[in-house]
């Protein structure tokens, strides 16, 4: 169920991320198009300037004749200019534009000649634009250009001084210059290309970012859960000392009461049996308190270098009676020549005994307890599965592995994640306190080791403990 929920959450996140990426890319694309479209005028102006310079050079040559020609002659020259200029522009400047109006003015700003492209409607509108233009016009004998959008199309208003071959200004040309569809398309298509490239980049980046974001979210979630868990355990620890004191006093009263009754009511069978039950109950309660105090107390280890097989053998000896009482076969597979590791003997015996007893309780009667030890270099898959979240281990570390397996009932799937939580137990009431594995894990972690519990495919459970053969500086 958890997997399905995770998958649904991932799908939802993926869709949201895709939507955000799509919107960002469209916005960026539109911004690029807007910027590029403004450049249309600049590009056209630039090309118009180039065309006008060339036009001017041609006109200058024709104006070398002494004195200005009369109106008709200028008109004729202008026609020639336009024809040659158009050809020039078309051939050299990739059909940048087309003259709509060209006025030739003398130095006193009298109109000398005019060219009008009658294919354009609203010529008057163009002339009005020319006259209402705000740019300074040939006051200093320089070119001027102004981009105008008329009915959604770009036009260039311009003015150029016409100079003869020795560079003397002899007249002025002013006019309106229409940007051809080809050049407009050319500029717009480059803008569109840029927009599409940006859209593609954003979408690809969004797609690439998705697994990274998911990983970071999972890491954050994991860190939050660990923090909550640590805070929970810390609260339990703080509570434990107070609870222990508050419970032990009443227990002490009850214990003395039991002792008093057992002395004074010796002849009364019912009282005697009752007192026995009460005595057991007090012991059980005291055991829980003991476990709680152990759990809450920071433990200092007494570390010595030793062979883990020795500790296992000593621990097995202590549960020998329980094994035989329940007719459980012991399969010992303790490898010789294991590297020594640093352990607190008593604490590790406590751990092993706790794990053996859990296995025995899981098997009830008959069954096999397998205890295996080996030494390996930590392979990548084992590291990824168990050690990745723990800073002490890295791939290739030499580790000693203790595995304890039983052929019992196994662990309910939903309980595996809770096994190390304080007071969590799968045993019947009265058997165990639910603190054994919590304390076990604390001791394991103090040894900078890792413990993992899982169900065996063949049935029963398997507990693996990985010990580093070399402890870091910060072990307790």
């Amino acid at each position: 169920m958890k997997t399905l929920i995770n998958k649904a959450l991932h799908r939802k996140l993926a869709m949201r991320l895709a939507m955000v990426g799509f919107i960002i890319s469209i916005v960026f694309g539109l911004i690029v198009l807007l910027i590029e479209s403004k450049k249309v005028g600049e590009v056209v102006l630039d090309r118009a300037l180039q065309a006008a310079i060339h036009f001017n050079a041609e006109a200058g040559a024709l104006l070398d004749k002494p004195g200005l020609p009369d109106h008709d002659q200028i008109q004729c020259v202008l026609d020639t200019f336009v024809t040659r200029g158009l050809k020039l522009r078309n051939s050299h400047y990739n059909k940048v534009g087309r003259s709509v109006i060209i006025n030739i003015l003398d130095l006193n700003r009298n109109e000398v000649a005019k060219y009008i492209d009658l294919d354009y409607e609203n010529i008057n509108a163009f002339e009005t634009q020319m006259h209402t233009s705000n740019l300074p016009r040939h006051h200093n004998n320089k070119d001027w250009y102004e981009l105008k959008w008329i009915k959604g199309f770009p036009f260039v208003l311009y003015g150029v001084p016409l100079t003869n071959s020795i560079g003397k200004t002899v007249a002025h040309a002013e006019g309106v210059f229409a940007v051809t569809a080809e050049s407009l398309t050319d500029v717009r298509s480059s803008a569109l290309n840029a927009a599409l490239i940006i859209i593609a980049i954003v979408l690809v980046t969004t797609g690439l970012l998705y697994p990274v974001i998911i990983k970071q979210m999972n890491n954050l979630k994991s860190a939050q859960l660990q923090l909550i868990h640590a805070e929970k355990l810390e609260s339990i620890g703080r509570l434990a000392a107070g609870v222990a004191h508050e419970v032990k006093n009443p227990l002490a009263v009850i214990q003395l009461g039991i002792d008093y009754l057992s002395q004074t009511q010796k002849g009364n069978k019912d009282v005697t049996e009752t007192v026995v039950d009460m005595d057991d109950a007090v012991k059980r309660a005291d055991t829980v308190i003991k476990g709680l105090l152990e759990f809450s107390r920071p433990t200092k280890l007494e570390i010595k270098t030793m062979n883990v097989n020795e500790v296992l053998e000593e621990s097995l000896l202590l549960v020998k009676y329980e094994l035989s009482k329940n007719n459980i076969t012991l399969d010992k597979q303790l490898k010789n020549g294991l590297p020594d590791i640093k352990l607190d003997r008593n604490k590790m015996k406590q751990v092993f005994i706790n794990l053996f007893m859990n296995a025995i309780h899981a098997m009830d009667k008959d069954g096999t307890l397998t205890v295996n030890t080996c030494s390996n270099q930590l392979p990548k898959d084992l590291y990824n599965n168990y050690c990745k979240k723990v800073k002490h281990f890295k791939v290739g570390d030499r580790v000693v592995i203790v595995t304890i397996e039983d052929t019992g009932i196994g662990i309910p799937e939903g309980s595996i994640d809770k096994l190390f939580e304080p007071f969590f137990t799968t045993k019947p009431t009265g058997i165990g306190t639910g603190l054994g594995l919590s304390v076990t894990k604390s001791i394991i972690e103090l040894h900078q080791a890792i413990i993992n519990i899982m169900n065996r495919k063949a049935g029963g459970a398997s507990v693996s403990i990985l010990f580093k053969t070399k402890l870091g500086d910060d072990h307790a």
Partner: protein
Amino acid sequence: MPKKKILVVDDEASLTRMLRRNLEATGKYEVKEENVGSQGYATAKQFQPDMILLDIMMPDIDGGAVAAQIQDDEQLKQVPIVFLTAIIQKEEVDDTGSNIGGSTFLAKPVKLGDLITCIENKLGR
């Protein structure tokens, strides 16, 4: 044989009552209860016990402070003190009392038999 006098100082009245009942039932001990920790020294001075059973965690005063007052008194400094306390565990001490840092401790809950053995060991010295 005169009964040995034992002073029990613990804020838990039901516990001191149980201790008195159990110890007096043996016929060997006369027991005085004191449930206000800060009165422990004054009661000891007045009762002149042969031995003191002293709780550590009390609301008004620490058992160690009471022990210090008693040990500063010339008349009482030879009286053996056993700390009967909930803040240690049975596994940290012997059932019949352990010497930790020069003081004797018994862990609660304590069985009567273990308590009497401890008392007799102390009084027998």
